[in-house]
């Protein structure tokens, strides 16, 4: 049953074009939101200034090959496997959430654009869509209830929501309602399908539109910062003792 395109039942009340337009709008929202965040908060300007200072303070000149090697290590260690996380559980939960989300997003886009309302959608796509969703939910609920640092270390009760929870709550709600509308559609309950799809739309929109106010954009900043940190250690501009370098693989 999880092998059928979950968006097909929606065509009862929505044309496939709706979903395609919606996806494009959400992509634009993320781009606009990130750009707004960078520009309005002037974080991009800060970053460029900071980078200029540290290059000026460099004691070693790094070659193209050095930079490429740093980029590769950043990608392999910090980005691909979230090596930045020193806590193993947090690292695992982020791997699940990130790759789950990417899988779920990519399969959504593929099914919306390549197989709109197509009963012949190859089973792999819906399967991967569900797998991605489940990965997000496992990593996400685990994180939300058991791993959030303000709960675990700062003594806050799990149900107390702060602005930093905007991303995780809207992500979990979006994916949860996606699975729910899939399930009730499989059970052939049109009313419930409309309700859950409505909620799915609400939280998905919230997720993508709230980029300037949530932690979403950190997905883009973190790899850039990780690369910059390694460069500063290698070119001598870092204020940290050289021995700190040993700490970073």
């Amino acid at each position: 049953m999880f092998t059928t395109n979950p968006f097909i039942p929606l065509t009862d009340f929505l044309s496939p074009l709706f979903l395609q337009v919606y996806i494009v709008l959400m992509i634009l929202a993320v781009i606009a939101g990130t750009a707004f965040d960078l520009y309005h908060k002037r974080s991009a300007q800060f970053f460029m200034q900071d980078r200029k200072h540290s290059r000026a303070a460099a004691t070693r000149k790094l070659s193209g090959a050095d930079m490429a090697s740093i980029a590769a290590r950043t990608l392999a260690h910090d980005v691909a496997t979230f090596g930045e996380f020193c806590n193993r559980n947090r690292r695992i939960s982020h791997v699940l959430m990130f790759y789950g989300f990417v899988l779920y997003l990519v399969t959504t886009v593929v099914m919306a654009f390549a197989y709109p309302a197509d009963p012949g959608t190859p089973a792999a796509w819906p399967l991967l869509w569900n797998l991605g969703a489940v990965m997000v939910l496992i990593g996400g609920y685990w994180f939300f209830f058991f791993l959030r640092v303000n709960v675990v270390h700062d003594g806050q009760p799990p149900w107390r929501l702060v602005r930093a929870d905007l991303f995780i709550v809207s992500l979990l709600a979006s994916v949860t309602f996606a699975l729910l509308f899939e399930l009730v559609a499989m059970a052939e309950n049109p009313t419930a399908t409309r309700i859950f799809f409505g909620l799915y739309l609400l939280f998905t929109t919230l997720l993508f539109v709230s980029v300037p106010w949530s932690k979403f954009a950190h997905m883009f900043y973190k790899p850039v910062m990780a690369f910059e940190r390694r460069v500063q250690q290698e070119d001598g501009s870092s204020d940290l003792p050289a021995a700190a370098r040993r700490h970073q693989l």
Partner: protein
Amino acid sequence: MPTFVYMGRCDGCGECVNICPSDIMHIDPVYRRAFNIEPNFCWECYSCVKACPQHAIDVRGYADFNPLGHSVRVHRDTGLATVFWKIRYRDGRMKEFQFPIRTTPWGSIQSPADYAPPDMSTLGSPLLAHEPEALKVDQLPRLPTGATP
């Protein structure tokens, strides 16, 4: 010198929250990362700075009397049992130091309960655990009896 946390380095692990003797490192509600909530109760003991696995915490000397542009940074390496310091002066001079921090493996201290139980009839004597051997003299010093005020 109060501490501050670098946005680009903190991943919100909470080690600083755990260790701060002043209870002033807490999690910011917007970014879920650490920050110093009460710099005027920061002793700059560097406990959080040393505890941070990402070297995300640094110190900017108290504004009351420290001009800007300085840096005193540390890497505490429990594996090497060494602490490394790098100091940058406001005028750009640099100094680096390293000092040993421990001569035995972490966790290796023998529990007092693992020693042979003491003779409980000596509970009233002045001798403390491992004495007189640990004193490295033959006997615990005592004042001559009949010491009077």
